[in-house]
């Protein structure tokens, strides 16, 4: 190797390399180039960040002028269903009086950056704000670093028209069931809030699934049931719709189709009552 390098220098090839290096300079750092499929930042450094917070601000801006009904379109896993997501976005844009759109985890399939950028391209065409919660696939590469860069915290909440929405991480298996997902302290803290009239949970893995931390299933459902105004817990993960009072208490547990199923859930929250409609696309 050393000899080769010496030959390289002796023959004056470094000066011959200059045109090639000059050709490369304008494109170095351009997003057309990928250094690694696992990189967590685009090559140019410019990428969407903190989208959940930005969208919460947009939702709140509409609050003073809106009626007291909250209308939400809620879908499960988008993963690699790019074409169907495009159809879903087109459909949602035709619907009137929808406050926001929820994508309930597994935004990406492999959890790598390029998938998020493709999904972002589709979601960005929505006329209404959208919020995403973290799924197990979003944690499969880089421990969710890309999700948190683009969308923000794994656990977050906001109040809107008397409802408090609690978006949280329930992907227990990804943390080897270490007792921290879901974060029970964070959830309990969120429920000590006198401003909202009702509470709505949003997370990826439903508590009765094998990927939920079994040691936390009972405290989780008990915590929700302990709050009389906790209405519903929304989930994805199962790629199909289900809707029941699973634990026999007042809390409703619902899952939504994944994006490729071409049918999405619309929920209208009216004075603590929920009207559910399935919308094909």
């Amino acid at each position, binding site marked *: 190797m050393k000899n080769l390098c010496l030959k390289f220098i002796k023959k004056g*090839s470094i000066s*011959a390399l200059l045109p*090639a290096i000059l050709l*490369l300079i304008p494109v170095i750092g351009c997003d057309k180039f*990928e250094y*690694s499929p696992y*990189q967590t930042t685009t*090559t140019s450094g410019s990428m969407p960040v903190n989208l959940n917070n930005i969208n919460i601000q947009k939702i709140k801006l509409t609050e003073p002028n809106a009626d007291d009904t909250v209308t939400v379109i809620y879908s499960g896993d988008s993963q690699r269903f790019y074409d169907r997501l495009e159809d879903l976005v087109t459909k949602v844009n035709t619907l009137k009086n929808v406050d926001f759109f929820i994508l309930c985890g597994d935004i990406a399939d492999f959890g790598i950056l390029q998938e998020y950028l493709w999904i972002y391209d589709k979601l960005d065409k929505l006329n209404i704000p959208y919020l995403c919660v973290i799924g197990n696939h979003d944690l499969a590469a880089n*421990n969710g670093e*890309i999700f948190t860069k683009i969308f923000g915290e794994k656990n977050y909440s906001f109040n809107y028209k008397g409802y408090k929405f609690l978006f949280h991480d329930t992907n227990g298996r990804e943390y080897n069931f270490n007792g921290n997902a879901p974060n029970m302290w964070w959830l309990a803290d969120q429920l000590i809030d006198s401003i909202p009239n009702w509470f709505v949970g949003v997370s990826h893995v439903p508590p009765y699934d094998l990927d939920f931390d079994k040691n936390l299933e009972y405290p989780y459902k008990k915590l929700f049931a302990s709050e009389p105004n906790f209405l519903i817990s929304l989930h994805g993960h199962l790629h199909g719709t289900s809707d029941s009072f699973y634990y026999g208490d007042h809390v409703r547990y619902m899952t939504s189709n994944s994006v490729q199923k071409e049918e999405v859930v619309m929920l209208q929250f009216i004075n603590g009552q929920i009207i559910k409609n399935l919308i094909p696309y």
Partner: protein
Amino acid sequence: MHKLIYIFIFLLNFTNVFSQKKLNDIFPKSAITVQYAGSTGFITLGYSIVTRNDKFEITLLYGKTPRSFGGVNRSLNIKGAYNPFHLIIKNNCLSDPIQLGIFMSQNFGENLGLNWSNKYPNGYYWWNRSLRTHFFVSSQISYLLTKKRFDKISG
């Protein structure tokens, strides 16, 4: 891990079938390769063997992605390339405006194990997270250093 062993066995067989002499006959030229980006790292260095007519080359590459792009990722790659045509720029300088091929990339990094952790049941995630196969199109400039050797810059 099993896949790595299969690749290793494949490479052993490859070298058995194509003995050193045969390999030298088919790929008489060699080159040092420097590559920018292309999913193997920020900068990737490699050693290539090249056919007499410069149409085909096989390269073993090692690349590194800096921490600022998300952890330190390293990759070991084996790459087969086809150069459909050349443009001769100078006596000692050759350009391949279009280069086509395939490469396999084994990635190593802070969050990239060879296997999925035991916390997952068998087959929970169906893909191998660190071994990837890529098809590529690239451009290349080669400089003749000795009569046998062209050195490559790819992008």
